[in-house]
């Protein structure tokens, strides 16, 4: 591997800083009292507490899964802190009341709330550790009847919607990490788009892990009612930290008849140093349910961070003619490990799914694609197209593909394409011979490789993805 590529892929993480804010933290470890304490701190109604307890009791009976193609030291769940909120956060009327230290953190990340608010037309629900510190453009959204708020606010103000949909896509008993999340989740985002409403703006949330040893258990619930549509952006950066941090989020999406949800993620959490020390463990359960006819759920993710990424944004295609999509770019470098992919479960008739996965491995990174396409007996005319491409940079990295296909209906049509390529000296030399620097050449080649996924991202995110990968996107003009 040329030294130019090597230095490119070994850049220092730019967002490694810790914000000094007083935090309100519960003792380390987990038992029923902690679960009750979290629920009490959040002043939750009884149905939430009962749900958390049910999840906790179930979690106790479950074992941490190890089927992923990832390796990490055992997690000591007793030493984790399960709730941490910046202490300065009281119910806020406006951004002016937000701790200036927090605002500076966001500015360092280049996500000034006020700027975003007016310039980009993006409503930002910023998650600092576990509690929402500022929600903007709520009024504008309220005009259209869109509810976009922190999960905690939703529990207080719209308990009937939360109760109706919570756990309907990812049940409290779904898997080890989802059960843990259900028991202790602190906050997250909530969005409800009423019947027939096209959400007037892209919705955005930035997550950031800050307090040391605080497991992050976000929970997001998005519901698009009949004929509604919404595009949701999630972007992540986390400061540098020596001990590994567990992040076990849950995202549930529900699309009713003729509704559509587009969920885009750019994930850039701290990946650990060159030896693989530090970094975030990102074990996430993301799932959408196309509950209604003609509904559509589309996942787009650009995964560049975390020491370990273990996630499978999935779609349950229950409604007839519903559509599921998964577009993914996963980049691993140094000693990063990613085991990511999707599940497309075809239940309804004429359901259609598309999977486009681009894995890029550099350094000593290990990148696995794991995808399941399941067609159930009643899914007449189901169709799936899967394309799974890997790119290797250097000789010490790895790429793996684990496709699973289960078809129980003979009218289904499935296509699977896979490829592996290497950034060669020849490609870089060709660019250099035309006057293009090696750095720009690598960006250009990788960007070209990811083009099919990048073009699915909303413009705001395409720019961020480009910065994250050090990539210049294909010009939209010319």
């Amino acid at each position, binding site marked *: 591997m040329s030294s130019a590529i090597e230095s490119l892929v070994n850049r220092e993480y730019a967002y490694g800083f810790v914000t000094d804010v007083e935090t309100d933290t519960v003792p380390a470890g987990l038992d029923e009292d902690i679960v009750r304490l979290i629920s009490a701190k959040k002043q939750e109604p009884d149905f939430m507490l009962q749900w958390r307890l049910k999840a906790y009791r179930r979690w106790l009976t479950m074992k941490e899964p190890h089927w992923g193609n990832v390796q990490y030291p055992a997690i000591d769940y007793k030493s984790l802190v399960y709730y941490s909120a910046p202490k300065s956060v009281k119910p806020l009327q406006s951004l002016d009341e937000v701790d200036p230290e927090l605002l500076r953190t966001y500015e360092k990340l280049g996500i000034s709330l006020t700027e975003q608010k007016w310039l980009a037309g993006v409503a930002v629900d910023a998650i600092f550790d576990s509690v929402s510190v500022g929600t903007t453009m709520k009024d504008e959204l309220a005009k259209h009847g869109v509810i976009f708020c922190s999960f905690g606010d939703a529990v207080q103000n719209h308990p009937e919607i939360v109760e109706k949909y919570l756990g309907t896509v990812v049940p409290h008993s779904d898997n080890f990490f989802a059960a843990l999340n259900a028991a202790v989740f602190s906050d997250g985002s909530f969005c409800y788009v009423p019947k027939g409403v096209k959400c007037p703006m892209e919705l955005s949330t930035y997550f950031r892990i800050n307090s040391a040893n605080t497991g992050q258990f976000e929970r997001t619930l998005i519901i698009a009612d009949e004929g509604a549509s919404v595009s949701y952006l999630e972007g992540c950066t986390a400061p540098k930290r020596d001990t590994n941090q567990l992040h076990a989020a849950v995202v549930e999406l529900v699309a009713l008849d003729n509704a559509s949800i587009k969920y885009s993620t750019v994930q850039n959490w701290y990946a650990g140093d060159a030896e693989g020390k530090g970094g975030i463990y990102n074990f996430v359960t993301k799932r959408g349910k196309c509950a209604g006819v003609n509904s559509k759920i589309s996942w787009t993710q650009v995964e560049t961070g975390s020491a370990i990424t273990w996630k499978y944004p999935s779609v349950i295609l229950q409604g007839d003619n519903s559509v599921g999509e998964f577009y993914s770019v996963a980049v691993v470098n140094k000693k990063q490990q990613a085991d990511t992919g999707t599940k497309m479960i075809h239940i309804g008739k004429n359901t259609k799914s598309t999977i486009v996965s681009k894995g890029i491995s550099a350094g000593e990174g290990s990148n696995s694609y794991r995808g399941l396409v399941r067609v159930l007996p009643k899914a007449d005319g189901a169709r799936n197209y899967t394309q799974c491409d890997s790119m290797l940079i250097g000789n010490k990295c790895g790429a793996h593909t684990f496709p699973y296909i289960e078809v129980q209906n003979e009218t289904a049509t499935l296509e699977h394409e896979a490829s592996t390529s290497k950034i060669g*000296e020849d490609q870089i030399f060709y660019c250099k011979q*035309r006057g*293009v620097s090696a750095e720009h050449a690598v960006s250009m080649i990788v960007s070209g490789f990811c083009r099919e996924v990048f073009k699915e991202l909303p413009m705001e995110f395409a720019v961020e993805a480009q910065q994250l990968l050090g990539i210049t996107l294909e010009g939209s003009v010319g």
Partner: protein
Amino acid sequence: MLEINDLHAGIGDKQILKGISLRVNAGEVHAVMGPNGSGKSTLAQVLAGHPSYQVTKGTVTYNGEDLLSLDAEVRAQNGIFLAFQYPVEIPGVSNAYFLRSAFNEIRKARGQEEVDPLEFLDLVDEKLKLVDMDQAMLSRSVNHGFSGGEKKRNEIFQMAVLSPQLAILDETDSGLDIDALRIVAEGVNKLRTKENATIVVTHYQRLLNYIVPDFVHVLAGGRIVKSGGKELALELEAKGYDWIQTAGAAA
């Protein structure tokens, strides 16, 4: 413009060039001919700065500067262009974007202002005609899914846009049918000026019917064994390379 002196180069332990000396002045066209394995392509790659080749002896000066100490992209920015024998594919990157990046990086290196995508489009329009290609090719990925002929025409198109001072055409005629050959050669001819120079590397004489060289050099066993005017190419065509190799060995 270019002065090559006793150049020795190879890959790993394998010596390929064993003492090449050549002088190219502005306004000249030089043809480098020779049988397979004589080192023609190696010479082209070494001049362009391919990292796989090591120069073990000799010097190359370009406009008075030590060429061999420069990175490949700096050589390109200084006006050296290599039309590749096997143009490389870059899937997902459009020709327009690729070429505009190259164009702008070269301008930047020369302290000139970059051009925006629309200006660039105007600029490339006439160059496309030169090689009989249409605008649609600009939005296709670089060489991806191109036929052999299209790839070679694309090389000459890029050359036209970047207007190098020294162009090296490495087997640009290989794999071209007679019509494509004529288009490519006419393109090259139109780009000839008194200020620039061209080195045409080729196995066959037929390209030289269209691009008429001022000098012809015959390479064999990593050395220039014979130099002459354009008639030398015809002589080679008639007698084959055996004649010259024998002559070279005897000399």
